[in-house]
């Protein structure tokens, strides 16, 4: 029975990490105490997006958005808002500049420029209840595909939509499906890459936690299209909540006959198993991920053959990432034409970005491709906190690069980011302000990739260590001008000769900062100065305390 009010409590990992579970428990207790459970429902949803403001809570149909909640606030909200109908102003979301109390979700700039397709259910439905998913049109696309479309029609629809892989390289999804369908072999597999390792990216976690069925539905449609009966979702072990919600979703889907034998009584069989990683960044690379599912060390192998021909257990395998699968049902339901009208010429649809670092509104945002960096950082992100100056954005994780202020008006799509020396990657956007030293930041990325290198090929294993050592010298005031040339030359070699995507893209943070922030490198070398004040260059090293030394290492 519909209730008078729905209270949506965000139960994304970020809000949980800020005590949202205790707030939900308290809410439950206070509502029970006041005999309100009959007319008010509490719904635990996936991530609503604005993690910075968590724990957050949304009251429908009033559209009141409460932020930064404490357990002690709950009684006041129930007493004033739920009982007396007077929303508690001091806890509502106020805009950064005007501090004007926003009454409706759509008036909040954070949401205004967003177009939610992939995240349409995240933060709105209870991810542990399949019926809420079905009520939003869930599994309708699968029903349509199984009952009225041929696999070729499905593949054409995906190809015509212009959807490209959301995991990194942006390969056209339709082509991948076509190649896997065309590959010879009786048995084929559908794999979902949920090994979201890029530091600064957390959209796949949010989708798996907030709307797991959308991934299951996308994979099942893909399985029908390529001719597969078995799927695997590979999730990082660092995401226990995502694993739990996905497990529950799989059980419910089986119970409802939406997975398993004879789905929709069409004779089509498909089931999905979860595989979890154990902490290895390189497993996001598709051939490494396959090795890991097989129970091996997660080491990549040279391509070709591509997984479409020889993947899991040497059988044709379709691998797409979480966000890519989450687009599928919307394309089937609304048509490829609808999808292809969103975005730019070569990059269709929306992209989910994870805003983090020195930006006012951190969290998840979904925008049409082609939105500019300025809109992303300043309009949606609310700009830089503390009156500091913007310096750069780092896009694409350790495989991406830094983009300086001069290019803020660049529309974000696969091609224009590539031209700037970075990649879309999985969509992590780390905002840097004037207090960030670009040399130190590049060093930090290299520290990451050299640690995560699987060690198989020499360019990556040895080359990255050399790059790191040079950067380390520069940040300690021991660099020489020739180092810059070496960095470029070595970086270029590593790019060309590494075995897999990790090595091939690992020099990007160095090369892009050298391109746009060369003056900072020169300053470190010639003047022994770090204008951001991060690197300790002037004192002789013996004077540096143990604590400070440790600071350089960690």
């Amino acid at each position, binding site marked *: 029975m519909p209730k008078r009010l729905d209270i949506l409590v965000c139960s994304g*990992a*970020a809000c*949980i*990490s*800020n005590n949202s579970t205790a707030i939900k428990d308290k809410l439950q207790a206070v509502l029970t105490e006041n005999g309100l459970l009959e007319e008010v429902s509490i719904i635990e949803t996936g991530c609503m997006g*604005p*993690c*910075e403001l*968590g724990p957050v809570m949304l009251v429908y149909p009033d559209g009141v958005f409460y932020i930064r909640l404490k357990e002690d606030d709950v009684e006041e909200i129930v007493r004033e808002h739920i009982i007396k109908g007077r929303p508690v102003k001091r806890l509502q979301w106020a805009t950064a500049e005007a501090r004007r109390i926003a009454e409706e979700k759509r008036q909040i700039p954070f949401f205004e420029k967003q177009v939610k397709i992939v995240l349409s259910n995240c933060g709105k439905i209870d991810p542990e209840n399949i019926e809420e998913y079905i009520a939003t049109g869930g599994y309708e696309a699968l029903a349509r595909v199984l009952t009225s479309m041929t696999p070729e029609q499905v593949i054409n629809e995906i190809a015509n939509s212009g959807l490209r892989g959301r995991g990194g390289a942006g390969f056209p999804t339709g082509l991948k499906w076509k190649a896997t369908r065309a590959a010879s072999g009786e048995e084929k597999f559908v794999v979902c890459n949920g090994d*979201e*390792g*890029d*530091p*600064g*990216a*957390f959209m796949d*976690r949010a989708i798996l936690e907030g709307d797991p069925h959308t991934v299951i539905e996308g994979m099942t449609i893909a399985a029908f299209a390529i001719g597969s009966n078995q799927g695997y979702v590979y999730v*990082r*072990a*660092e*995401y*226990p909540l995502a694993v739990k919600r996905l497990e529950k979703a799989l059980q419910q889907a089986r119970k409802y006959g939406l997975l398993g034998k004879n789905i929709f009584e069409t004779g089509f069989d498909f089931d999905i198993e979860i*595989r*979890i*990683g*154990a*902490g*290895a*960044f390189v497993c996001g690379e598709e051939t490494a991920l396959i090795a*890991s*599912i*097989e*129970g*091996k*060390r*997660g*080491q990549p192998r040279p391509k070709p053959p591509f997984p479409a021909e020889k993947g899991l257990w040497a059988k044709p395998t379709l691998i797409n990432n979480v966000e890519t699968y989450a687009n599928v049902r919307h394309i089937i339901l609304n048509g490829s034409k609808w999808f292809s009208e969103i975005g730019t010429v070569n990059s269709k649809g929306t992209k989910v970005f*994870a*805003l*983090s*670092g*020195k930006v006012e509104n*951190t*969290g*998840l945002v979904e925008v049409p491709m082609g939105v500019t960096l300025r809109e992303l950082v300043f309009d949606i992100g609310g700009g830089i906190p503390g009156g500091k100056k913007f310096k750069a954005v780092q896009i694409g994780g350790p495989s991406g690069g830094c983009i300086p202020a001069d290019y803020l008006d660049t529309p974000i799509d696969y091609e224009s980011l590539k031209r700037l020396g970075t990649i879309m990657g999985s969509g*992590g956007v*780390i905002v*840097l302000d004037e207090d*960030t030293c670009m040399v130190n*930041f590049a060093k*930090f*990325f290299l520290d*990451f990739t050299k*640690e*995560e290198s*699987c060690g198989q090929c020499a360019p990556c294993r040895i080359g990255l260590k050399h790059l790191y050592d040079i950067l380390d010298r520069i940040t300690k005031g021991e660099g020489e001008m020739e180092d810059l040339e070496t960095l470029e030359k070595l970086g270029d070699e590593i790019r060309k000769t590494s075995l897999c995507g990790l090595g091939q893209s690992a020099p990007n943070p160095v090369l892009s900062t050298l391109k746009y922030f060369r003056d900072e490198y020169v300053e470190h070398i010639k003047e022994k100065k770090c204008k951001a004040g991060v690197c300790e260059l002037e004192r002789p090293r013996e004077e540096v305390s143990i*604590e400070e030394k*440790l*600071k350089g290492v*960690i």
Partner: protein
Amino acid sequence: MTREEIFKKYGKSKDNLLYIMHDVQDNNPRHYLSEEDLKEVANWLGLSYSYVHGVATFYSMYSLKPRGKYIIRVCESPTCHLMGSSDIILELVKHLGVGIGETTKDELFTLELTSCIGVCGVAPAMMINNEAYGNLTPERIAQIIEEKRREAR
């Protein structure tokens, strides 16, 4: 769950190696894989000891030495670094009196670093076992550790 029960749950399929090692490690009160564990896993799946050892040491979440009741994994992603994770690590080092990769004498805490736990919106962050903690400050570290100490009593 005993080791044998875990083995039976997964059967003899080699691709379950990662799962089996996770479960065996979680069921060990010291959260690690002993040499005997690895040998038994290898026997059960019909793999060589060196193969199983190779897989266990490839992934950062398996430990071959005993750890504490609470495994603290501080996120050292670039975002967390930018938002002050080094202060958090220093505070933990000071507060627990151990270095990275070490366990406190009372066997309660092991301090580790992790690449990214995906809660970048509330950086700096860390995980204690399966629970994530965000928006950390050195002051909060002391509180959280005390809370866990109380919980363990």
